[in-house]
């Protein structure tokens, strides 16, 4: 079905028009670009969303940096956010009409940067509030949102204190005519919306919501879709919670021009709302989280926004909230005009594994049996790529409810089944058997078996086990762990021309000491809620392998190419190179060790001709690797100034292509030598 837009063009038609416009402007030839059939956002060397386009493909049609020129890359400039106290490097900049925009540091300064020199052009700082002071994800800002309003470029951010601010992109000044006056000294007269005002909880503009009631902030920016600013949110990490009360991370919609409140979608359904019956024990009345901390994606043409959600309060124990707990750990499609649910799919029922969705959903138009099919794919910690028709919500390939183990923790009632996609195949470890363990030598295999003998192991969805259990075990060891599979530090990328998805993942299993909640509560300085859960995480840790080696068989981390037209894996490669600590390990002397990969996820971008990713070489020095997109064969490798994580972007400015690496407090930018 072809979808008509308000301009009377279908999506493919609009893309074709965009391509013609670009060609006529002569920009394509100047920058070595070729337009692609992609979602809006990266035409002509732009990068409008933190994921490049609103489909979050992190794809650019730019092609000045190709296989032949890759080796000529050199440092162009470095922007240092140290003066903003920046540390995390989570923010992927946007390049919009000749400027870069990003956020930096715990104040989440909004910064405009000259894309040619790295000079700071302007910055905006939100005035202090008590609700900022106790905010728990201050330096974790992931970027900005953008829209054109009445011919003017506007930048939007959500702050750690949970205000939405709109700034004139030219000047950095708060947008006139947007929002309502905030009754706090120092706040601008315009340009700001207090998001707490529309959630429906008691709050004080300066102090925020009381911690006894819960906590809400945001690390991702909003996304602007057809004139509506869609606002997600974050909670305190579920593994840092010990009490059962919290507020739900409801989704909010605002007018992009005026800041007028348009709608709220309840992620925890109230009586009479769809999914309410999935909350037993009246937990809907007092618990929450279900935040959408990963970035949001959007189908601009159809006016649908895609929202990945977190689990409900708490991680690893949900005995107080029996039921499937919609819309936790779900993918939700909302009509951006009304905020109404178009469809949803719960990826994990009654999630107690911290299997929150860590990266934005990726949108592609693929070819199946000669038909163009609009899909959305959500990669996950549990190593499944859940794939749906993004209009109807129908799984592209069957997703089966299969039996999973029951919990042995007192009071915990898990779902008897979980959804298992039948295709694509998992891209990394699921469940744990002895066959997954290191096998360089029989002695190392046995040592690894001995190490895990203290833990309950099992298949995917092996549940946590409490301390002082009847089995005499330290706990359960479940795989993937909550930092296995895909996580925030390695967002997937995709090529909209070929329909290939590139997923970076890490082999990891988790164990947690589950103790009476009061033990953990006593160690939390500012807990949220009032009622201590029967169980909570006392400490969290993985399990070290034998002799300072990895517990598992390699690869420790990998990139998997999946053809989303067919659901088939095309190839996989280890991330980077085998560390010298492995190559030179005394117990492996004389052995031919394959490339193990570094164990780290790979920040990536995909361009017209290359998949580019960052990783360490064997000696630990940071490098950028270029890979042939079709085969996975390495076609280039250069040393870069610093190690990067969380993402990467590319843009074309004045005919020159740049690559930006997120290197801690800095942005490290590369371009071809003059």
């Amino acid at each position, binding site marked *: 079905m072809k979808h008509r837009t308000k301009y009377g063009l279908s999506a493919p038609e609009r893309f074709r028009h965009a391509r013609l416009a670009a060609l006529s402007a002569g920009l394509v030839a100047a920058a070595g670009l070729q337009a692609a059939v992609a979602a809006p956002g990266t035409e002509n060397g732009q990068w409008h969303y933190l994921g490049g386009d609103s489909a979050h493909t992190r794809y650019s049609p730019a092609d000045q940096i190709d296989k032949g020129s890759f080796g000529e890359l050199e440092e162009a400039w470095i922007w240092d956010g140290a003066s903003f106290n920046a540390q995390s490097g989570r923010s992927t900049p946007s390049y919009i009409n000749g400027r870069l925009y990003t956020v930096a540091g715990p104040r989440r300064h909004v910064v405009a940067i000259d894309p040619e020199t790295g000079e700071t052009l302007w910055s905006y700082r939100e005035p202090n509030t008590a609700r900022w002071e106790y905010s728990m994800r201050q330096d974790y800002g992931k970027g900005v949102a953008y829209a054109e309003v009445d011919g003017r470029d506007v930048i939007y951010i959500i702050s750690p204190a949970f205000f939405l601010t709109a700034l004139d992109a030219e000047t950095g000044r708060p947008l006139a005519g947007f929002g309502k006056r905030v009754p706090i000294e120092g706040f601008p007269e315009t340009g700001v919306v207090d998001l707490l005002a529309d959630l429906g909880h008691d709050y004080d503009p300066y102090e925020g919501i009381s911690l006894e009631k819960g906590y809400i902030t945001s690390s991702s920016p909003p996304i602007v879709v057809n004139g509506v600013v869609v606002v997600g949110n974050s909670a305190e990490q579920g593994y840092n919670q010990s009490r059962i009360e919290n507020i739900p991370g409801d989704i909010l919609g605002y007018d992009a021009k005026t800041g007028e409140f348009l709608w709220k979608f309840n992620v925890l359904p109230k009586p009479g709302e769809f999914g309410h019956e999935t909350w037993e*024990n009246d937990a809907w009345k007092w618990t929450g989280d279900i935040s959408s901390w990963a970035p949001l994606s959007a189908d601009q043409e159809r006016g649908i926004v895609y929202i990945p959600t977190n689990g409900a309060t708490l991680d690893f124990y949900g005995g107080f909230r029996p039921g499937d707990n919609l819309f936790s750990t779900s993918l939700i499609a909302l009509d951006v005009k009304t905020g109404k649910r178009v469809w949803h799919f719960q990826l994990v029922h009654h999630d107690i594994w911290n299997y929150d969705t860590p990266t934005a959903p990726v949108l592609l138009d693929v070819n199946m049996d000669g038909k163009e099919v609009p899909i959305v794919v959500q990669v996950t910690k549990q190593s499944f790529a859940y794939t749906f028709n993004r209009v109807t919500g129908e799984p592209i390939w069957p997703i089966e409810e299969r039996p999973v183990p029951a919990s042995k923790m007192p009071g915990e009632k898990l779902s008897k089944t979980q959804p298992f996609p039948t295709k694509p195949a998992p891209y990394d470890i699921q469940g744990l058997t002895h066959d997954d363990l290191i096998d360089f030598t029989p002695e190392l295999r046995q040592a690894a078996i001995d190490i895990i003998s203290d833990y309950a192991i099992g298949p995917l969805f092996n549940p946590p086990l409490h301390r002082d259990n009847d089995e005499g075990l330290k706990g359960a060891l479940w795989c993937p762990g909550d930092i296995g599979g895909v996580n925030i530090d390695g967002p997937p990328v995709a090529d909209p021309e070929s329909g290939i998805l590139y997923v970076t993942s890490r082999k990891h299993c988790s164990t947690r000491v589950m103790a009476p909640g009061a033990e953990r509560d006593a160690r939390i300085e500012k807990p949220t809620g009032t009622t201590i859960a*029967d169980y909570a995480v006392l400490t969290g840790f993985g*399990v070290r392998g034998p002799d300072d080696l990895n517990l598992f068989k390699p690869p420790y981390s990998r990139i998997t190419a999946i053809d989303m037209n067919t659901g088939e894996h095309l190839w996989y490669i280890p991330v980077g190179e085998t560390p010298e600590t492995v190559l030179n390990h005394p117990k492996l002397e004389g052995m031919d060790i394959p490339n193990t990969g570094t164990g780290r996820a790979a920040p990536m971008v995909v361009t017209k001709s290359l998949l580019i990713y960052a990783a360490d070489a064997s000696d630990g020095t940071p490098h950028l690797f270029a890979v042939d997109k079709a085969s996975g064969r390495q076609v280039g490798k250069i040393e870069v100034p610093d190690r990067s994580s969380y993402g990467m972007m590319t843009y074309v400015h004045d005919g020159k292509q740049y690559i930006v690496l997120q290197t801690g407090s800095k942005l490290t930018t590369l371009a071809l030598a003059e």
Partner: protein
Amino acid sequence: MTRPLLRSTGAVLAVLGTFAVTLSHADPPTINDGIYTEEQAQAGEELYAEHCLTCHDKKYFRPVLKAWEGQPLGVLYTVMSASMPESNPGALPRADYVDILAYILSLSRYPAGDAELDYRDGVLDEIVISGRE
């Protein structure tokens, strides 16, 4: 379910827990006793900047050490060495984690001493995390 068990109860349990540990260990070494060397802390500073700083600023561990008062230092080491850095858990040699631990102690102004901190032979399990004297 034991609703409601209030915050004050948690605080009481914390105090009792700490008191019990204090009573059961007459004179165990604590992190106040100069249990690491300056050289270890210096080596740990570089490692901290490379592997830890993106998530944990230099003030991060002050409240953590306070919350863990009364517990063996070995528990903190075990958590660190098996689950950190989050981007590649357990990837560093064990000795590197000890150096990072030394730097963390120095950040909170616990004194250095003459003897190197060692992860072997259960040494870390004998040292108690305590408030700064």
